[in-house]
């Protein structure tokens, strides 16, 4: 049951073969058993979850059923959920109980999904290993001494270890796709503006985008049907007609269901910096796509190398301003003792934020300062447009772009914490799409052996053009019809 797809679970619930309470209890039991070791969740509330499950069962009994009614979902702790502690992985918000629901929380409530709990994450989504969380690191279910990736590390581990049916994440520079790659599941970052940011705690507003983290492309499509859609409370939310993201998914009798699909391989994604073992898995996946009928096109994204420096100007700039509201005045952490207002600010923020968050606030404050703004922020915005233009050119030659989602498999906890630049390079293949606002996903593509002989998952990244999520999901879905990487489970968690 824990390995079933959302569609299968839905069918079982609707046919009353199981109840939502039973399903929810199953996951709660697994969480109780495995979470103390994995640390995927920050907040759990069994009674709340079971009450929602009970309500879902009543709804099912009344025949008022839609996909995901009664399905237990994990929510990244970046989304405000009324009555839930909502920490964003920070000491700063340890005492914050959200008094309102984020847009997507309301969306899941509306379909009658069950909120199992709030998942661990890098502090304010700043990190690629989940090690910046105030609530401790998360363990990669495939190898417990390794990181799950980040910043959506808790959701990633929860999906991989089957501690939820599916989860939500957010992706500012790769925070859905890199953990999906490192933990071996399917994660989608939609086009910027597709999922409302209302109630999602801001890191870098022009880059932040929520998306689904689930076992398969089909599951992600069902999650997207709930999460996506216009919300007038978010001015950057796109007012487009509601889409059915499952519409392009089909079972084909043809041996070449992707006949005619042009897949672009950017040479910059297969150069120095990519682990050879990861490269091999990606090549095998591309070979599989050829078998499915895809045509391979060589392309170039010449400004890829600039994406990390540009990102580490823009994202910290926005973050430095977004995080100014955590001042100890109205909510959140306030120092116990202080002499005056300035001292209260200084102490509260010094105590409330961790090192990585402080580093980014400092960088952001610096690049926005008088005399530096033009050289850093403005220049970075100009290069951001060049990076987006790279993709415009590329999509003239191909339908989707493929490559690795992360340069390596999961690394050991502690390995990169003292080397921020090495950590930042984890997002080398994912950041450009955030800068361009494009959709990207990572799907399980196989396993690579680590230096110490552990078999670890590798993700294939699929980047699409704006609003092309439905096609991307089908491109992933067809691969998942002929491979079983996405059904594999870490050992010892059965």
């Amino acid at each position, binding site marked *: 049951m824990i390995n079933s797809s959302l569609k299968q679970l839905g069918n079982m619930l609707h046919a009353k073969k199981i109840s939502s309470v039973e399903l929810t209890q199953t996951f709660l039991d697994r969480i109780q058993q495995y979470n103390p070791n994995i640390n995927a969740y920050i907040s759990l509330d069994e009674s709340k979850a079971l009450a929602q499950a009970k309500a879902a069962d009543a709804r099912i009994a009344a025949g008022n059923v839609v996909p995901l009614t009664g399905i237990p979902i994990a929510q990244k702790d970046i989304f*405000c959920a009324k009555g839930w502690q909502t920490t964003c992985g920070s000491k700063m918000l340890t005492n914050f109980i959200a008094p309102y629901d984020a847009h997507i929380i309301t969306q899941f409530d509306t379909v009658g999904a069950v909120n199992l709990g709030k998942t661990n994450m890098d502090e304010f989504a700043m990190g690629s290993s989940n090690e910046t969380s105030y609530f401790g690191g998360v363990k990669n279910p495939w190898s417990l001494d390794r990181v799950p990736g980040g910043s959506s590390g808790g959701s990633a581990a929860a999906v991989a270890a089957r501690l939820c049916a599916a989860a939500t994440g957010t992706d500012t520079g790769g925070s859905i796709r890199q953990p999906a790659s490192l933990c071996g599941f399917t994660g989608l970052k939609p086009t910027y503006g597709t999922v409302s940011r209302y109630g999602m*705690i801001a890191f870098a*507003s022009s880059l932040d985008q929520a998306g689904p983290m689930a076992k398969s492309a089909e599951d992600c499509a069902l999650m997207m049907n709930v999460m996506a859609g216009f919300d007038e409370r978010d*001015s950057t939310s796109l007012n487009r007609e509601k889409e059915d993201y499952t519409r392009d998914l089909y079972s084909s009798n043809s041996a070449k269901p992707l006949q005619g699909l042009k897949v672009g391989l950017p040479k910059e994604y297969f150069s120095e910096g990519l682990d050879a073992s990861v490269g091999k898995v990606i090549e095998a996946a591309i070979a599989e796509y050829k078998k499915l009928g895809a045509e391979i096109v060589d392309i170039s994204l010449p400004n890829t190398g600039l994406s990390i420096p540009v990102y580490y100007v823009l994202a910290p700039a926005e973050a430095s*301003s977004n995080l*100014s*509201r955590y001042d100890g005045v109205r909510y959140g952490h306030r120092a116990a003792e202080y002499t005056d207002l300035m001292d209260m*600010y200084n102490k509260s923020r010094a105590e409330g934020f961790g090192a990585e968050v402080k580093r980014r606030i400092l960088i952001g404050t610096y690049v*926005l300062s008088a005399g530096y703004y033009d050289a850093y922020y403005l220049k970075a915005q100009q290069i951001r447009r060049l990076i987006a233009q790279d993709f415009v050119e590329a999509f003239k030659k191909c339908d989707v772009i493929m490559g690795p989602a992360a340069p390596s498999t999961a690394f050991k906890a502690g390995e990169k914490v003292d080397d921020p630049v090495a950590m930042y390079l984890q997002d080398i293949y994912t950041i450009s799409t955030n800068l361009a606002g494009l959709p990207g996903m990572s799907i399980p593509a196989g396993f690579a052996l680590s230096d110490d002989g552990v078999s670890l998952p590798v993700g294939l990244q699929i980047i699409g053009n704006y609003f092309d999520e439905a096609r991307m999901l089908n491109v992933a879905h067809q691969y998942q019809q002929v491979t079983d990487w996405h059904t594999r489970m870490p050992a010892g968690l059965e």
Partner: protein
Amino acid sequence: MEWEVVIGLETHTQLKTNTKIFSGASIKYGAEPNTQACEVSIALPGVLPVLNKEAVQCAIKFGLAINAHIAPRSVFARKNYFYPDLPKGYQISQFELPVVGKGAITIQVPAAGKNAAYEKVVNITRAHLEEDAGKSVHGAVEGMSGIDLNRAGTPLLEIVTEPDMRSAVEAVAYAKKLHELVQWIGICDGNMQEGSFRCDVNVSVRPKGTEKLGTRREIKNLNSFKFMQQAIEYETRWQIETLEDGGTIQQATVLFNPDTGETRAMRSKEEANDYRYFPDPDLLPLVISEEDKEAVKAQMPELPEAMKARFETQYGLSNYDANALTTSQDLANYFTATVDAGADAKQAANWVMGVLAAKLNAADTSISDTPINAQQLAQLLKRIGDNTISNNAAKLVFEALWNAEGSVDDIIAAKGLKQESDSGAIEAIIDEVLAANTAMVEEFKAGKEKAFNALVGQAMKASKGKANPAQVNEILKKKLS
């Protein structure tokens, strides 16, 4: 050395919208603290701003009223600084690309001599939309400071002038004109006590005849025209004295203390914030189309300048009268309603700006709350015009109308103010007066003109004020010739 003062103003006008500029919370004044602070006002984690279209319409109205360039695309920026009443740690404002660009306002500056004034054009640099901060409340709780976020997010239009003004009088004339204009076009209630209209004044001095601007000091948050005048005059004197004593002016922000009449620096440039402005990524650029402008234009009232010109041509009023009657829409409406009800335009202008204005002033009330409506005043003026009552009697009727003692004609009847126009009766009275005041008659005949007026006065008194003064004059003249 002769000095010249150079003044520019930045005015924060609170816009008359129903809700805050970036949220649906009410902006009503005077509510219990934090009862109008929604999740956006408090800046909870995860909340986002959504621009209030009403505020944009107010900005367009203002741009149209001052004949300014209205930006087809303007950008909201974050002004970053920490203060407890600034919940997000930044204020959403406009920086590089404001919604309203260059425009101009023509002002009448009072000059020496009764009814004397000269005209001056004050150039507007820009006007931009922004949100107000909350308020720090000290002393409500012993030993603590409170924060009231009801005002946080209230829409403001900040209107910035060029340094075009050369005296405190010009600055005040501009501020008053702007105050009238924003109320006229309905974008601000103009309530200065409640902070709906607040002026920051930049003052610098330079040797007369030189071009280079002196170092300025900014007088913050003036909320009365009287204080503005006092503050600028004090600041100007202080700067001149400082320079003449060999000192230099440091750029600074100063506050005016109405009790001492002095300005005092609150922070110098060195302590000034680096606001780290950057475009707000939560808001799209504000796009205003020609259609948007046309739609607002269609709702615009006739502007004071146009109405003034019309009053001069249509009613034959003097420039001074037309100007005075168009200082507020209520006043202008009252005047036109009086004329429309049948009153003579010039007479109506005189009464509205004379007797009525004086009475309103004495009673500390405004034209919108006058107990005498335009129809009543028109009726009163008609009774002067048709010789039913004298001008003096009319003032008595006016008083009675003010006290709601009845209609014009009822009051005239009740008080017996109907003027005596029967020449026979008036002649009889005059004969009696002449007989009783032979000394005066002699004085007049000896060339003392004043004696004539005294005789008129005696005749009026004898008629208990009811005789038609014109007839009294006429008959008396005849009898004495």
